[in-house]
């Protein structure tokens, strides 16, 4: 080993705590960066690849066939800004029934002679494209389980056509649930219904504004009111990415915190090593090391633990990515998602480069130091720092050890600043994580609508012993009216409403949405409003944010629900927070659907008992009446569990724990350097009668001011970070978050969080304090 190598190795061995601190700080930063970077890449990759390959439609527009002709629509292809277009294709919404089964959910069928080429080239996953009437190609995303050769009947249509599944395909922009040849469309379209679909690609389509402008341009030359629905590729993309995209903002926040902390700690450790190792530097130079070699020696001492920390960080990042990527794999139905090697390489190079640059900058002073000065100065700290503060301490009405400790930060302000910064970042992380946990709890609460004391869940469909395959499905036995009568008759029933779920389609959107129809006032049921108001009359509806985004509607607009016995138009009066079913829901009053869907069997019942009523007793009594109806009541709200929330909470807790550990180690490093530097001073104090307990008190007190100040600053900064990241996370899943979710901190919570800074500081200072207390006085006094 070269002389320089020996110097580096001995330096690493001599400074075990600093080595550990650098290693852990780097590991934390690398783990967060690998995880964040990978998810950033993975979140967009599958969709973007498929969109480019299939020439996905930037905008699909649904037109009313009764108001505009195919010829008029064809002219819209020549609109300025349209690079290519496909259509018009006839569309219809039909309710299928697969062999021997009960009716399925409504589906959008499009008539296309081929899978397309320049716009929305539908990818065939199995079978072939439909070539004649009587054949149908199902979307892989269809609610029907696509099986080749399966017969699908449409008994509600005139002539009751039956089609055979000949292919399974996927449109990247989800332009249909199924495709048939155009000649099949008349048989699938009820008189007076049906529409046209146009698919456009624009020259500029990167932003929502550009898509909106494109949409206005293509409809400008058409009669007003002809476009009844549209879907932007950005909306579909966001839906596709949301499961991973939700992690990205908070991982970026943790990655940035980790990186800044890592740089600060490495800089501080190396600068401290130079500061306290002045005599050693002098000796190294005296024996012949050049200034460049001295700098390299100190950079090497930082790079060795940083390299180990980086390796462990990459490993930790990969392990932490497993549960997150597994969720994404489920969404795309693939098992190929993994961390891109270039992400690892970029993070490794970036972090080690940053560490090397920081260490070099901090070690530069060592290289420039004059040998004679370094040898003369030795290890003893120069006097004169913060004398005013020491004098002030002497006047404080406090025991001397506490006063001496309190003024210590003013004697070494740079070191106190470095320790304070570490504590600051730890406090920010803790504050942010506590806030995020509370916010996610609020989202789950909004999702669960769990304000009811007692719930009678909707009965599950009885598929019989053969399971959910083809076969006659038994209808649920429970009669909602009988359940309602039992609830109303029960002693202790206070407020009460029931909620029935039916499926429908909305013009311009593929797939089905859930329509939740309430009987009674459900406004108390735990529905969190984002904007507008709750429904108070038939014909009104509230919808979640993703529904508004997908349909392009706003509060005050009307939307038409199709796929029911007859179309139902509702006016949107409010925006509600509800992430279930990807936010594709409409909440309305049951009387709105009286004509369109009189048979509301999939009904749950929600009860608030009168004050003083024992919930358990109430449930027991009610169940006596419900058992014959084949349903049962239970206490509490609906299940609020979510894998994503569990993963998010676990990830943030892990990363926070790592940040707090690094912060405490940063403090430990600072206090250790301080106590070693002051070993003679501590020896003098002990020689003059300072007890071990007083010594511990003095050392611990030396971080109190720093801990309190950093804690006091860290809490508001953590709140600000939470205020930035949470809305970004909500945006990534298409949710607008109300104040009840974003403003989760209250005064009673902030004080303990601020004291958390003091706790981190104390944890970090405990070890050096014990070391100072145990140091033999005679040894300390001999130390120069």
């Amino acid at each position, binding site marked *: 080993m070269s002389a320089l190598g020996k110097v580096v190795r001995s330096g690493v061995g001599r400074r075990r705590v600093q080595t550990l601190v650098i290693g852990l700080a780097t590991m934390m930063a690398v783990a967060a960066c690998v995880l964040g970077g990978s998810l950033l890449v993975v979140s967009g990759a599958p969709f973007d690849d498929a969109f480019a390959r299939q020439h996905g439609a930037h905008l699909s527009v649904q037109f009313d066939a009764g108001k505009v002709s195919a010829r008029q629509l064809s002219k819209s292809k020549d609109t300025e800004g349209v690079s290519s277009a496909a259509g018009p294709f006839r569309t219809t919404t039909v309710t299928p029934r697969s062999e021997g089964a009960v009716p399925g959910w409504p589906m959008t069928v499009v008539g296309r002679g081929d899978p397309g080429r320049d716009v929305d080239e539908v990818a065939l996953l199995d079978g072939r494209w439909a070539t004649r009437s009587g054949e149908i190609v199902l979307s892989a995303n269809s609610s029907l389980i696509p099986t080749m050769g399966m017969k699908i009947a449409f008994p509600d249509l005139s002539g009751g056509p039956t089609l055979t599944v000949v292919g399974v395909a996927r449109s990247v922009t989800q332009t249909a649930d199924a495709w048939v040849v155009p000649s099949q469309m008349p048989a699938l379209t009820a008189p007076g219904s049906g529409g046209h679909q146009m698919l456009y690609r624009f020259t500029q389509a990167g932003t929502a504004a550009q898509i909106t402008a494109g949409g206005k341009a293509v409809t400008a030359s058409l009669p007003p009111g002809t476009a009844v629905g549209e879907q932007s590729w950005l909306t579909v993309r966001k839906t596709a990415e949301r499961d991973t995209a939700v992690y990205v903002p908070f991982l970026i926040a943790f990655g940035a915190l980790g990186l800044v902390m890592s740089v600060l700690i490495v800089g501080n450790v190396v600068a401290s090593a130079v500061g306290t190792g002045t005599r050693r530097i002098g000796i190294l130079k005296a024996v012949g090391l050049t200034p460049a070699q001295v700098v390299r020696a100190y950079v090497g001492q930082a790079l060795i633990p940083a390299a180990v920390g980086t390796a462990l960080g990459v490993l930790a990042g990969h392990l932490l990515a497993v549960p997150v990527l597994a969720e994404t794999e489920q969404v795309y139905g693939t098992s190929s998602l993994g961390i891109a090697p270039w992400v690892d390489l970029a993070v490794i190079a970036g972090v080690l480069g940053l560490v090397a640059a920081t260490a070099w900058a901090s070690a530069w002073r060592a290289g420039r130091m004059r040998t004679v000065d370094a040898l003369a100065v030795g290890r003893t700290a120069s*006097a*004169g*720092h*913060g*004398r005013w503060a*020491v*004098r002030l301490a*002497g*006047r404080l*009405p406090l*025991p*001397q*050890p506490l006063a001496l400790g309190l003024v210590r930060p003013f*004697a070494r302000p740079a070191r106190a600043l470095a320790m304070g910064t570490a504590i600051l970042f730890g406090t920010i992380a803790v504050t942010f994580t506590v806030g995020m946990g509370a916010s996610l709890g609020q989202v789950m609460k909004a999702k669960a609508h769990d304000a009811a004391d007692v719930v009678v869940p909707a009965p599950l469909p009885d598929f019989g012993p053969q399971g959910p395959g083809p076969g006659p499905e038994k209808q649920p036995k429970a009669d909602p009216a009988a359940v309602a009568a039992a609830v109303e008759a029960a002693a202790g029933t206070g407020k009460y409403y029931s909620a029935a779920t039916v499926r429908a389609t909305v013009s311009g959107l593929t797939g089905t949405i859930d329509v939740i129809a309430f009987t009674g006032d459900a406004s108390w049921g735990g529905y969190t409003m984002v904007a507008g108001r709750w429904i108070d009359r038939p014909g009104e509806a509230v919808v979640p944010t993703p529904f508004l985004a997908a349909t392009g509607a706003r509060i005050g607009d009307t939307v038409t629900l199709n796929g029911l016995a007859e179309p139902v138009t509702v006016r949107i009066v409010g925006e509600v927070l509800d992430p279930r079913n990807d936010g594709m829901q409409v909440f309305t009053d049951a009387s709105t659907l009286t004509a369109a869907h009189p048979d509301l069997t999939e009904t749950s019942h929600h009860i608030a008992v009168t004050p003083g009523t024992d919930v358990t007793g109430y449930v027991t009594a009610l169940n006596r009446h419900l058992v014959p109806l084949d349903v049962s009541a239970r206490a509490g709200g609906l299940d609020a569990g979510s894998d994503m929330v569990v993963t998010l909470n676990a990830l943030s807790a892990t990363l926070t724990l790592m940040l707090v550990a690094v912060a405490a180690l940063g403090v430990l490093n600072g206090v250790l350097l301080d106590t070693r530097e002051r070993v*003679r*001073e501590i*020896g*003098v*104090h*002990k*020689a*003059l*009668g*300072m*007890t*071990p*307990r*007083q010594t511990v008190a003095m050392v611990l007190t030396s971080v109190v001011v720093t801990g309190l100040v950093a804690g006091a600053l860290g809490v508001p900064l953590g709140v600000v970070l939470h205020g930035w990241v949470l809305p970004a996370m909500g945006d990534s899943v298409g949710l607008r978050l109300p104040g009840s979710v974003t403003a989760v901190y209250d005064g009673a919570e902030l004080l303990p969080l601020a004291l958390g800074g003091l706790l981190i500081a104390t944890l970090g200072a405990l070890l050096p304090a014990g070391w100072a*207390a*145990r140091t*033999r*006085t*005679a040894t300390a*006094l001999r130390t120069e």
Partner: protein
Amino acid sequence: MTTPVIELRGVSRRYDDGPPALHEASLTVRPGEAVAILGPSGSGKSTLLNLIAGLDRPDSGTVTVDGVRVDRLGEAGSALYRRSKIGMVFQFFNLLDDLTVTDNVVLPARLAGMARTEADRRAAELLELLGIDRHARAYPGRLSGGERQRVAVARALMNRPALLLADEPTGALDTAAGQDVSRLLTGLNAEGQTIVVVTHDLALARSCTNRTVRIADGRITEDVRSQAVASDAVASQAAR
């Protein structure tokens, strides 16, 4: 016969695997005595001083100071003992550079819990007594070596100790300053203060002590008492 201030019985101390730093040493010092411990470098005199000060513990034997079994004390007990029973003066002063002269002097009293005003009053008395009251607000770095050692003596006397221990008190001083410190110690002893001085300096030993103990290779080889001076000292102590 008065109760001894220091009583060492068969005290031995060995560091690691080296030869004994102190071997079966026994020593008795009575109130009012001024004792010089003389010996070459590595002879064991600093070990002896550390054992008396409670900074180190013997491997065997007993160390009793002013009735306290120092060899049995733990860390906290040793600190309380040093605070109440002894004052220490070091070769390199061991003053804290960040504190003013007054703040250095009041430190032992403040550690013992004395109120600041009372400690300040006592410090002012001592500084005046030692002729350095004009430097009360100065920092040690601005004082001469002799003045710094006077500050160290003032600090050592702050809690009215039964025993003043001085480790090479003139070792870092020039001749004039050394003589100044010597006169100071002589004066204190004349007032009845029991003093133990560890030194290489024979002149210092002769000028300010009334008893000389020589150590070589960890053993006490000579214990010479100046009878007349010793009697005066004991009488002076009795008169206090």
